[in-house]
């Protein structure tokens, strides 16, 4: 409950915050560099004297958007692959699971590096620099996180398709697609939703690691991971710089996970009445 409220506050904060707190994110003011929190700059400033509150609010939009969008990619791909594997015959199943395992064994970090090198510019030309990088990062993070979801969905399918109600529906002559969409999928979604919440958190963290390696968004876009990365060298002298983005990531991850836990409990059929 509390976590839901916190999450909602965070989301509303980054959506509406910049409308209320209108300081520009890139106003350089050398006279106000590395200041701690004050009325003028509630969360302090960075080494160029830029207002951290404005940057965190703005960056939160991107970090949260990346988190949710990457989760969506992972879940959609995972559900589709898992469902296909679960419903197709043993051969299709084996092939799809082989692909899944292949992806699991691929070393993600170097591939991430290389893929981002490769496609950043072609995409940028089509949709512009920020959207291009956004699509790429989302696709790349999502593209490397669907495998657990696929396995989960497949396992659910395999067990669910033997259950009575599916048998019943089959006996009633339901078509394959209808069977999947109406009967199996909704029942398999419980664990998927839980996995999805974890993916949101993981994607936000993955974005920050990409920033650490210099492969995230353009450096003038202050995502939370980027802020944390920029702040790391000043940690012993200006801890506030790292503290607030770190706190934002932590609160988001925490609340998302608790929401996931709540969903899990709510969706758990074994829950004792």
């Amino acid at each position: 409950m509390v976590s839901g409220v916190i999450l909602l506050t965070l989301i509303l904060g980054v959506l509406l915050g910049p409308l209320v707190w209108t300081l520009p994110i890139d106003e350089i003011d050398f006279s106000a560099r590395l200041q701690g929190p004050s009325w003028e700059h509630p969360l302090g400033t960075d080494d160029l004297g830029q207002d951290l509150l404005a940057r965190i609010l703005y960056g939160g939009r991107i970090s949260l958007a990346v988190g949710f969008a990457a989760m969506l990619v992972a879940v959609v791909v995972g559900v589709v692959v898992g469902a296909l594997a679960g419903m197709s015959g043993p051969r299709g199943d084996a092939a799809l699971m082989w692909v899944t395992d292949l992806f699991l064994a691929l070393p993600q970090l170097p591939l991430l590096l290389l893929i981002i090198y490769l496609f950043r510019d072609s995409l940028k030309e089509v949709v512009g620099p920020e959207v291009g990088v956004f699509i790429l990062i989302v696709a790349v993070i999502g593209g490397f996180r669907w495998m657990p979801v696929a396995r989960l969905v497949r396992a659910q399918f395999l067990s669910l398709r033997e259950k009575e109600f599916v048998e019943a529906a089959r006996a009633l002559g339901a078509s394959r697609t209808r069977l999947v969409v109406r009967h199996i999928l909704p029942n398999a979604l419980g664990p998927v939703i839980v996995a999805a919440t974890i993916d949101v958190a993981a994607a936000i963290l993955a974005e920050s690691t990409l920033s650490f390696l210099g492969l995230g968004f353009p450096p003038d876009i202050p995502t939370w991971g980027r802020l944390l990365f920029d702040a790391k060298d000043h940690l012993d002298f200006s801890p506030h710089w790292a503290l607030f983005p770190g706190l934002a990531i932590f609160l988001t991850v925490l609340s998302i996970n608790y929401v996931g836990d709540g969903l899990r409990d709510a969706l758990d059929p074994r829950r004792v009445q």
Partner: protein
Amino acid sequence: MANYLLRRLLIAIPSLLGISVILFVVLALAPGDPFGELTTNPAIPPEVRANLRASLGLDDPIHLRYISWLTAMMKGDWGYSFVSRIPVDQLILQRLPTTLAVIGISQIVALAIALPVGVYAATRPYSIFDQVANTLAFVGFSLPTFFTGLVFILIFSITLDWLPFVYRTGIDASGWRWWWEQFRQSIMPIMVLGLFQGATWTRFVRSAVLDVIRLDYVTTARSKGLTEGTVTMKHVVRNAMIPVVTLVALQMPAVFGGAIVTEQIFRVPGIGSLLITSILANDTPVIMAVTFVFAALVIFFNLLADILYGWLDPRISYS
């Protein structure tokens, strides 16, 4: 059993081939070449650069390069590093033990944290202990390892001045002192990795134990008059380990990813830092080999997990 193993190993071969193709193609398409620094150097004539490229076979078409790589690999020839002219396998062997030791110990630390904490928390769900453990676990995995590593350095190396933060392979000591120095310099990288993984696994263990603890056979075990400890260890934990093993195996790529970052921060000369330097130097044979070793390790650990899974769960048959 042997038959099963053999079959699994045979399945692993197309996987490894598939991975090698993907890696090779991506690497071949990747921008940059190993001579980046040469371009800025006015003293090097272009023809020397061209000579270098040709001598390393960089100008052949991709498929030819792949086939020659593959055939050489089959013969056990991993090629030479572009930048240091050392056989790649030698380079990797030099570093693999360090990585395996650091990762291995950190995983043991992670398990040593995750198992007791996760089990204890699950046996008392929603108690104070559970809440605290849960929150700490969230803190643990919502902070990126590059950040925790830095905080550790600030606290233990700089403020307290207890531990060195540069990992040195050439410790001038022997006997106990050597072990002591080794311990002092390894503890931070191990803890950073171990705590991060431990946090994740605590959640896995807790949830797996929670799933098992409400099952009927646990009540059965209790009805036999076993002590609570025996019930938990023999009947709950043992069964909860089955999904945990799978999850842990699924986590292996993430573990290696974390190792890359940690090795970079603490200058641990493992294959993770080898990978980073070779990526920065565009040292393709090394990148190829290291990523391939990573992939092989992941496949190996998955295989291990499968075997462990089968050992833990008699319902799985190897036939």
